[in-house]
């Protein structure tokens, strides 16, 4: 099963978590949450260099760092924050850049509202089936050298 790492803020409180999982399940994928403990959150966002005020945004940074450092494994990444959140928009973009710089994982970013439905997310995920030419992901081969190694 294709594992899509979910790096997000506010999906649970906006009521769209179910829609994200539904969209993934439709294409035979599952959403996974990269590991990050409390100490790692502080360490990661300081290393990353973005001093976000929101703790969920800091957690997003830690989850991205966890993927890049190889603490968690995934085949693709879905980055998402609330539509109109300035801090979320900044971090979403920086995390995308960070993951694309240090891994070969395909990344999709999206800003949702409470009205986001699984059907809208299909459009995003369709261009990235595992069999897409030039985008074949082999476990263990999709990671570039870690910046911290």
């Amino acid at each position: 099963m294709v594992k899509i790492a979910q790096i997000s803020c506010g999906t649970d409180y906006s009521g769209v978590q179910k829609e994200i999982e539904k969209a993934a399940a439709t294409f035979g994928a599952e959403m996974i949450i990269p590991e990050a403990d409390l100490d790692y959150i502080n360490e990661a966002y300081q290393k990353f260099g973005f001093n976000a005020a929101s703790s969920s945004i800091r957690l997003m940074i830690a989850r991205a760092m966890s993927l890049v450092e190889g603490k968690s494994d995934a085949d693709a990444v879905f980055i998402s924050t609330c539509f109109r959140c300035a801090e979320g928009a900044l971090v979403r973009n920086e995390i995308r850049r960070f993951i694309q710089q240090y891994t070969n994982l395909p990344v999709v970013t999206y800003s949702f509202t409470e009205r986001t439905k699984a059907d809208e997310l299909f459009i995003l995920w369709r261009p990235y089936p595992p069999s897409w030419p030039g985008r074949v992901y082999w476990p263990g081969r999709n990671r570039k050298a870690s910046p911290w190694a």
Partner: protein
Amino acid sequence: MKIAIFPPNSLILADLVERKGHEPLVLQKEIRKKVTDPEIDSPPFNITEDEPIKGLKYAAIEVPSGVRGRMAIFGPLIEEAEAAIIMEDAPFGFGCIGCARTNELCMFVLRKQGIPVLELHYPETREETMEVVNQINTFLDNLESEDKEGGD
């Protein structure tokens, strides 16, 4: 008395309030009501599209849906509150709702309620911690006596 605490899911603040015989208004109780429904429509918190719409009572439509969804849970608790304890600059291990903008809005709405509010900064040392606990206890004791005087 019903005491709103901030962060609204702080177990330490809730415990201090409960020890003085008051009722802490905590986020966990509200979430519990949602997740013990016979139908779980939207895990993990069973928050659906309706909650951000209910949150329009506290924040405008151009406010992010996450803020409105959080306010739909915490807003009714603020309205119910007869007093409040706000702990500012608390680390996320102490309790948090994940969004700094929601924190700002919650604290503003609490201050606007016209109820007694105790505002504290998160203690960093042992002495500060003892001072903070004393302040909370004194605040809660005073509320108790005010309540009795009001009742008489």
